[in-house]
Structures are given as structure tokens and as C-alpha cells.
């Protein structure tokens, strides 16, 4: 039992360190708060593209991709090692996660060699950004309930409908899209999967303003949008199978800590006086701090167990759901509790007035999204119950009827 690299991992790590030391600036010390706000800024995106190209040149983009996709053909543990090292540097992160983690692997799995050659390399070098057009206003956790319509027209398809929660639609070049091509078939049997040029005529993109004030997501409206049949992935009516390839990778893409965490609330408790001394000396505060410390340590070592499995070449199971489930609620609770400690002043969110630059107030408003995006808490619990514990799936009312005969409620 140890935390050390294998000789192969150590060698790989040395190479990564060498590359990063030459190519990037170390991250300045600080609280380590990471926000995803940068993607909205065109200058950030330019920097991200430049950095991605450097990584690709050095062979560190697409570490786990097979070589015939243009990847390194490396192992998941090498990706972990790379990420650990890159986290020490001030480099732009996150812009290509959805494309490289979800869209392109789907394209490469289901598309022709020609499609691979055209798209994989450009995505890997950051020259094209991809988005995912899956969720709809009436199809979230129940994705297969989607009703964006695809109708054949000669060698094209005509798309009509509305997608939602699409990160970065307004700056993306391409998107992957699941549609319903047969409303009379059973729910999972009438879907067809495409990839689409985001500048196609008839696409309208409307930013969604979140409760935090930020707009990371969009609604994407399709009005008679034309897609060539050559951009279909998988057979007509088999879109669900293709979509599962995309979703399999989602857990690896979403996640990571977004918001003020346990070390920030410790820091606050040290500094903040409750009137009868520092918050850190208060019994109720200490009780909470202990809970959060123990949970975050537990998550850290669950993660180390996952890395151990990766290091051995095993595939980690649905255990990955655990981190997201625990972390999202914990951050929400930490934020609310930290603000309580600030009493009436806790409402202040001006970074110049609020402790830790307003991070807790910011987290209060962003953490609800973390409990929903990328699989809601409830879906995560279902996954654990069914795939880890082997409990039966929910009784379904929607598996046998044609889609157009399913009850839908008011829309």
C-alpha cells in the first residue's frame, strides 16, 4: 500500500513535468478556487486554443485516444498524472472537455475513417470547438423523451425543435445532436443521431441566464435546419445506442470542484469573530468542520482507490458517481453555513466586501446547478442503487407504448 508512481508512471510524469516547465507558467498560490467563467471570454478562448495546440504538438492532448484517432494511445492513469501536473500551472482549462471527452469519441466510434480524419485532429488541436445538443425542455433526466423532429428530405434531413442546456453553443463550431425521426416507434427506437455545423441556417442560439447571473448554457432552436445524411452517425432509429456512447463519457467530463470548499471555510472560521471569539473555537462550528473534513478526505481516498484501479488497467465502476453526489451537496451546505457565520453581513457578495472574495456567496448561487448538471443527485442515486447494489430499475410506463401515445402532462 503506497501512493507512489510505478516506474512507468514516474517516467511519464517526468516527461509531463519537463513539458509543463518549459511551456507554461506556474499557478500563483491562492485558495485554488476554480470557476468555469472563462469560456465566455473570447480572449480566454484564444489562449485556450493556443495552449491546446501546444499540448497536441507535445502529444499530451488525447492521451487516452487510440493512435488511429491521432491520440497517444496511453492509459487513463497517464491522463490522471497529466492532470495532476497541469493543475499546478496557470493554463486555460475546460473549453474542449465536452468535444474531446464526449463528441469526438462518439464520432470516431460511429463515423467513417473520412469523418475521423476530417474532425478528430482539428478538435484535438483546439481548432474546432464542439457542443452537445441533447437535453430538451421536456427531456432532461429522461433524455430519451426528446422530441426534436428529424424528417428525411432527399439526401438531407430537416430538423425542427429546441435543445437546451447546451454549454457554449454560441462559440462552438460543431455539435452532436439526437433527434426523433419516428414518433410512432417506441420511445428508444425512434431516435437518430447527427453531427451538425453550428452555423447552419435556421439555428438560433439564446443564452440562458442562470440564477447566479452567469450564462454558461444556451437554448438552441432549430427551424427547418438542413443536415446532410452523410452527417448521420449510426442507423436511422438507432440514435439511442449512439447517444449512450456519448453519455458513457460524461462522468469523466463533468465534475471537478467548482466553488468554495472545506479549506476555505476553515480559513474563514479562523479569521471570523463570532463576538465571543473566533468561529473556529465554537463547538457547533467545529462539529460541522469535522464532518466536512472527514467527507472530503473520504472523497480524496475514494479517488485514490479509483486511480489505483486505473493504474492496474482496470475500469473503475459507477463509483465515479459518488464524488459528484457527495461534493455538490457539501459545497452547497458549506456555502450556506459560512454565510451564517457572517450574520447579516453574509448577504454581501461584492468581492471587495465579502470574505474570500465573495466565494461562498458565489457558491451558494452556483451549487444548485452542480446538483443537477451531468446527472442529478437523484439519477446518481439510481445509478448507484442499480449498478452497484443490483436493485431493480424503476417500473417503467414508457417502454412498450409508441412514443406518440405516451402520457406527457402539460407542456
Amino acid at each position, binding site marked *: *500500500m*503506497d*501512493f*507512489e*508512481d*510505478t516506474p512507468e*508512471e514516474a517516467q511519464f510524469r517526468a516527461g509531463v513535468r519537463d513539458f509543463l516547465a518549459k511551456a507554461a507558467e506556474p499557478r500563483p498560490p491562492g485558495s485554488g478556487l476554480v470557476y468555469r467563467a472563462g469560456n465566455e471570454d473570447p480572449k480566454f478562448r484564444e489562449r485556450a486554443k493556443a495552449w491546446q495546440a501546444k499540448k497536441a504538438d507535445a502529444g499530451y492532448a488525447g492521451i487516452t485516444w487510440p493512435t488511429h484517432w491521432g491520440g497517444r494511445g496511453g492509459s487513463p*492513469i497517464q491522463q490522471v498524472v497529466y492532470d495532476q501536473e497541469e493543475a499546478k500551472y496557470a493554463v486555460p482549462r475546460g473549453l474542449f472537455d465536452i468535444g474531446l471527452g464526449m463528441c469526438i469519441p462518439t464520432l470516431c466510434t460511429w463515423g467513417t475513417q473520412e469523418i475521423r480524419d476530417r474532425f478528430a485532429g482539428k478538435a484535438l488541436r483546439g481548432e474546432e470547438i464542439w457542443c452537445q445538443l441533447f437535453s430538451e425542455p421536456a427531456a432532461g433526466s429522461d433524455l430519451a423523451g426528446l422530441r426534436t423532429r428529424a424528417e428525411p428530405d432527399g439526401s438531407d434531413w430537416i430538423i425542427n425543435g429546441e435543445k437546451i442546456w447546451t454549454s457554449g453553443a454560441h462559440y462552438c463550431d460543431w455539435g452532436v445532436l439526437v433527434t426523433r425521426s419516428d414518433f410512432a416507434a417506441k420511445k428508444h427506437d425512434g431516435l437518430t443521431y447527427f453531427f451538425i455545423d453550428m452555423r447552419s441556417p435556421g439555428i438560433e442560439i439564446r443564452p440562458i441566464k442562470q440564477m447566479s447571473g452567469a450564462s454558461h448554457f444556451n437554448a438552441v432552436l432549430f427551424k427547418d435546419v438542413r443536415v446532410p445524411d452523410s452527417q448521420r452517425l449510426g442507423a436511422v432509429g438507432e440514435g439511442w445506442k449512439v447517444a449512450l456512447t456519448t453519455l458513457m463519457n460524461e462522468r469523466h467530463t463533468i465534475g471537478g470542484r467548482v466553488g468554495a470548499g*472545506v*479549506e476555505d471555510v*476553515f480559513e474563514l472560521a479562523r479569521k471570523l469573530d463570532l463576538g465571543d471569539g473566533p468561529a*473556529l473555537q465554537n463547538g457547533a462550528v*467545529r*462539529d460541522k*468542520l*469535522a*464532518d466536512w*473534513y*472527514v*467527507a*472530503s*478526505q*473520504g*472523497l*480524496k*481516498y*475514494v479517488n*485514490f*482507490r479509483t*486511480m*489505483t484501479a*486505473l*493504474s492496474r488497467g482496470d475500469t473503475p465502476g459507477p*463509483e465515479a458517481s*459518488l464524488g459528484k*453526489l*457527495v461534493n455538490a451537496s457539501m459545497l452547497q451546505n458549506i456555502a450556506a453555513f459560512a454565510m451564517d457565520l457572517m450574520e447579516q453581513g453574509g448577504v454581501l457578495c461584492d468581492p471587495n466586501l465579502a470574505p474570500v472574495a465573495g466565494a461562498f456567496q458565489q457558491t451558494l448561487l452556483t451549487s444548485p446547478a452542480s446538483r443537477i448538471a451531468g446527472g442529478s443527485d*437523484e439519477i*446518481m*442515486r*439510481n445509478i*448507484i*442503487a*442499480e449498478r*452497484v*447494489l*443490483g*436493485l*431493480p*430499475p*424503476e*417500473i417503467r410506463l414508457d417502454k412498450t407504448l409508441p412514443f406518440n401515445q405516451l402520457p406527457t402532462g402539460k407542456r
Partner: protein
Amino acid sequence: MNFDFSDDLKALREQARKFLRQRCPTATVRRVLEGPEPYDLRLWQEIAAMGWTGAAIPEAWGGAGLGHLGLCVLAEELGSALAPTPFASSIYLAAEAIMLAGSDSQKQAWLPKLAGGTIIGTFALAEGPGKADPGKLFTTWRGGALTGEKLPVPDGDVADLAVVAARGERGLQLLLVDLNGPGVTRHAVDTIDPSRSHARLVFAGAAAEPIGELGRGEALLRRLEERAAVLMAFEQVGGAQRALEMARDYALQRYAFGRPIGSFQAIKHKLADVWVATELARANAYYGAWALSRDAPELPLAAAAARISANEAYFLAAKENIQVHGGMGFTWEFDCHLHYRRAKLLALALGSTRLWKERLLLELEAANAPL
């Protein structure tokens, strides 16, 4: 990254699991719970014969020299099986105290017997309800003689040897007491978990020799508790996992409203939460095992985290196991209460969650860096 037990230790765990499934079904636990026997003597002898009691004791003192990682995997299985033996008292506490601070002659005198299971050891700290504050113990040690009362002492009715915490002339001192000698009386007491016996020990001038340096008793006590907490955490994780499996199995087999109750989200989500708590506890216990096996400076923090999360996970798993079983869950006949009793017993055995949270915070403050 190799944050796992070796293949050899996993094989040992598997072997222990098979043995206990066969040799220690819940009928065995119930026999002790319901009958006059304080523990299962034959099971204890068989465990000792396989070398489990001596797993972490060096070969020089009659042990198997497997190290503490070996003891951790055994503890997990003993906890899972609810083994009605004095293993924790004798090994995690008495043997551990002697290994930590005993003189060569003390080691020579006691470790081979503890390793071989020919004697039973225990550890006596509590003096009735309320916190056993090391600075305010009533039991005193003067001129080599021990006077006072300890309650409850796990396995105190059957132990041959006790490590006793008492107030000496230079503060708290740990002492070795031969419980079969003069000046010791003991009576079994009822506890919430009769599958593990407990006693009141009364010392009236019993002979007691110090273990460890005089004046350093508090530090030794802390170290002993940290080491035992990691080992106990493995028992608790084993118990939590077993309680979760019982609930899962029942939820699959019990039908209501025309479907298995395990298909209701009310049950699925409850058990998902139990699984999450158990996995967090397991991960913290593993880190504790790492720190224990290397005697790492991180041990105080790692042990506290392991203890707190194991206390919470096992009690959660045990109480929700009853809930999933519905009406049958709170009958004497069903086994759910065995885990429920044991979960609370173990959660108090080395001090409550509240005390360990305070220890954790003191460590974090001293380190001045939480993560």
C-alpha cells in the same frame, strides 16, 4: 499509485471470510447473545490457531509478523461476521499497548501468550457514564498498588490481563494488571450488545506495574487509541457492508404493491446513501491503515477521520437495515438488531464521535493547515 492491500493480504481476507461464513454464522453470535457463554471459546481458539491473534505481533514475540495491514483485513472480516470473541480487547488494545510501550520483559511475559490466544487481554479506561477525562480519573496508582473501579470494561469478566489507565503520582499512567491476582474483583454487567461481554472491575490495592515512561501516559493513551481506532474502523466497515448487503438482499426478495420493494426509489436512494457512507468510511479506513502500517506522522488525523466516518457509516447502515426490513426488522428473530447493537457498541468503545471530532479539530489547529 497502489492504494490497496497486496494480493497476499487479499487472499488472507478471502480465506478469513470463507472461514467465518462457515464457522461464525449469526447462529453462533446469537448463542453468545442469548446464552450464558461470555464469548465463543472454540471460535476464539480456532482463530488463535490460525494465527490471527498474532497477525501484527512480531515473530520474535510469538506472532506471525504480518504487520498491521494484515490485522486490518482480518478486522474487516471479524466485524462483518460480528464475531463474538475478545479479539479487539486482547489484540487492538492490550497487545498493542505492550508493543507500543512495554519493556522487553513485559513483551516477553505477555506478547507470546496474547499472540497465541492462551490468555485474553483488555483495556480499562471508562469509569461509568460520562467522559473518561485523563486528568480526572478516580482510579489511582500509589506505591505499585491500584485502587478504584472501572466500568464498563470490554471482556473484563474473562480477561487475564488488563491495561488500566489510572492516575499516578506523575499524572495519567497506563498499568499492567494481572486480573487473576489478589485485589481484583469483577462482575459481568449488562450492555446493549450481550454478544460482547463487559464487566465492572474493582481494584483494591491490586499489584500493577507501569507500562511506558512515567509522566508520559497521556501521549501513550492517545497513540494507543489512534491505533485501535484504525483497526476498529475496519471492523465497523465490515459490519456496515454486511448490514447493507442484508438490506439489499431483503429489498430484492420482499414484494409489496406488486413489486420488489427494492424497486422503489425510497428504498433505492436510502441504500445508495448507505453505500456512499460506507465507501467514504472504507476510504478513510484505508488511509488510516496506511498511516498505521508506517507509523506515519499523519496517523492522528487519519485515525480520527477513519473513526468518525466508520462510527457514522456503521450506525447508518445498521439502522436503515432495520428500516428496510419493516416490521420484521425489529423482531428478536431477525438478525438486524445484532448489527444495530454492535454498531452502537463499537461507536462508543473507543470514545464517541463527538470526542473524536474534537481530537480531529485539535490536530488540524496544531497543523495549522486543514488539507
